């Protein structure tokens, strides 16, 4: 039996394989989700978490490119801050089990939570009254979030470096930040509508007002 464990793909080969796997994952989850009943918010969150975790791991060869920012923007826009914070924590903790855990984990959780908060705050701007996503606005917010996220996480260097180190560090990392922003742009274009539709299908509507409802005579 031939063993393929020692096959060396190289950077390009690894990248192609990983992108292909991620595409298959997205397609498979999408088709799976379509068969589920609507209104199961946990399902929606779970699917987002799976996409976020696996996407971050599989796309690790691409520097600073992952779908998490866009996913959390949409999750925050559709489900609000609370669910966005939960999602950010789960995605970062689970993916950092593979990618590496350290002081930066906390900063990533906080930064992505802030992204989810931004999504929630801008929900009516991103999603119209019919529940339709404005893709252009998502692109703009996603692009800006890329820089904002990176700058926030960069604050973690202050644990080992003086404050004077921060500005040059941020300046030198500009290209990385640009990659993150452009990646968000691409994910917004490709995943924005399907993810948004999926999240919308799994709203669980609970009527809050049970008192003071006029009886019909």
């Amino acid at each position, binding site marked *: 039996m031939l063993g393929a464990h020692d096959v060396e793909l190289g950077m390009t080969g690894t990248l192609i394989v990983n992108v292909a796997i991620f595409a298959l994952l997205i397609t498979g989850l999408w088709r799976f989700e379509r068969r589920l009943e609507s209104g199961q918010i946990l399902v929606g969150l779970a699917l987002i978490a799976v996409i976020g975790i696996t996407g971050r791991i599989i796309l690790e060869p691409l520097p600073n490119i992952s779908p998490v920012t866009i996913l959390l923007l949409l999750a925050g826009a559709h489900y609000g801050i609370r669910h966005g914070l939960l999602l950010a924590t789960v995605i970062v903790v689970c993916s950092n089990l593979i990618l590496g855990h350290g002081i930066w984990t906390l900063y990533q959780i906080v930064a992505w939570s802030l992204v989810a908060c931004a999504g929630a705050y801008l929900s009516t701007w991103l999603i119209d009254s019919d529940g339709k996503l404005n893709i252009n606005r998502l692109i703009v917010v996603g692009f800006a979030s890329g820089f904002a996220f990176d700058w926030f996480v960069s604050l973690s260097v202050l644990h080992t470096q003086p404050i004077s180190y921060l500005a040059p*560090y941020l300046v030198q990392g500009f290209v990385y930040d640009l990659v993150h922003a452009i990646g968000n742009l691409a994910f917004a274009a490709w995943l924005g509508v399907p993810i948004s539709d999926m999240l919308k299908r799994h709203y669980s509507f609970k009527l809050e007002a049970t008192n003071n409802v006029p009886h019909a005579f």
Partner: protein
Amino acid sequence: MRSARVLVFAILLFAIFSSSALGHDVEPQDVTWELPPVQWTKDLDSGYVSTSPLVIDDLLIVKVGGSSQNPSGPWEDGKGPGIYAFNTYSGEQIWRYEHNQSRSGFEISPPVYIEHYEMLINGWTSGYITAHNIETGELLWSHETERISWGITGKPLSIIGDQFYHDSIHLATETGVIGLTPNGTVMFEHSFPDNATGYRNGLGMILLDYNFSLPFTSQNGMFIATGDEKGGIHAWKADGAGFTSWDLDDLLGLSGWKVRTPPFITSLLDEPETFGLGVVVQGQNGGEFITLEYQENGSLELNAMVSLGIAPAIPLLLPAGVVVTGDLSSVLAHCSFNSPGCENATLVDSGPVSGEITSLFGEYNSGGMSFAIPHNTEEGYWTGHLIWWNETKLGTSLQWDWHPEKPGWITAGVGGTSEVMAAANDASWLEVRFENTSAPENNSTEIGGDNSSYVSNSTVTGLSMVNELFLVVILMVSMGALFTGTSNAKRAGSIGILLVLLLLLPTLNVAWVSSVSNEGEDKSVDSGQFPSEYANTQVVCFEFPDDVWDGEPGLSLFLNENGEEISRSLGNQSRTCVGGLQGHQNIHTVSIEATNVAGYNYTWDEQPLGLFVKDIGLGIAGDGDRWWLYWVDGKHGALAADLQPVTNASVIEWRFL
């Protein structure tokens, strides 16, 4: 076989062709041989450059005479006589050899490259002969010959691949001639008679008693020849046998002749059935271009003599028997066709020319044979010329003149081809010219920290023009698609922009990081404790926190390139330094050698934007949230280790923080 090719080429030098042999397709006055632009320069600051640089594909070899503060003082550090090897197209220094045994301040024996052995042969005024690996500069062997005043000053000659003789390397020493095998073993030695010495007596190939009816091989009259300062001409076979000498005083009837140029094969006047020995000699009243005929009794007789000016230069031998000579007054072209146009020499240019006239053959070949002349004035310059046979006489034209940015006297010829040229002067100033399309790839590396060198870029990204244009088009189309209304167009546009960015990411990152400096964390190099052996070499220091340092806290160990301890001291830093390293171009390779010498483990990870150094010695990446960072010459490094260039005397400091 190389010797067969040499012989065939030698025959071509003096074969009587029809006028169409030198013909050209277009009128010369309608063809221009353009001087390519300067791509990079270097102030070698290492004394006179007296020989033309060698251009061997992407390797450029320059020989220097050495620089010292005073004539009898020691050579300045790193500026001694020796050899520089650069990348022809980027100007990056590949290796450097210093031959500090030489004390003369000039080196005029041209280096010779033996392709079959990938070997560079040099004769030095110290009397030494050295052989180097052309790629690495590693000294393969050296041999010392007798030196009275000026050692070896003439050009060597090699016989490689001949069917009758073993491979051999021939040189004229100050007191005789020597033949060596490619591995440096002496095959033969002959001394000049009458205690004569030789100066600038390069070796040439001649034919004596050549028989037209026999096959053209090295057995058919091929000899190697040279001259000496007493008018002696000497010839021997490729194995050193048959050493024979003649005296110009007897041949020409006067005394005081000096042979300071290589003899060569030429045709004889009114003797089409054989070949003659040509040589440019220096007499009491000026130079002479003489042609000698070999007689059956073994003697030489004067066949022709053309007067030249004073202090003749090393002549250039061109195909079809054209000889270009130079002296203090003029540069002349001589031909030996059976034509009235060859009765008098053709004036090419004015003097003074006392160095090497060099051919610059290459892709340009439609307007005549191309060559360059070094004009030896205080603000010396080179001129490029074409020469052709105009049916009845030689025709020449001046195509360009080349004035170096830093002026100086010039004896060194232009090296290279008609498309890729390199030249240097006595001010130790080197210039390299080529069109960007001549380079194998458009490197846009700028050599940092050296204000005397630069590389011009043809494209922003370093990719070829076509590829860069293609990427720009994709980028423009993608951005346009992004702002259209349809979602499919946005998807396509976003992917296009992302792909372009990923393709350009390494180039962009290097360019961006190099253009911004991290001023917040620069530290001055603490080199006060460095041993003197570290001067002008590459030094790598590894600083460890006390918890991962296996020695006495605060101990600094200084090792040489062989791992031997030079010194140690106590202070604030726990570190091991390795110095005396040379020839490395980036942090990564010099660190590999340094860790090998110091006995440290060195591991790295290949990342999309370069190599990420993980572990060095007991410093393991991530241990206590600490990682290896480097500083080069006091500046905090921001590039990946394999992308950060270093100079010959860089100090690299690795710190585990």
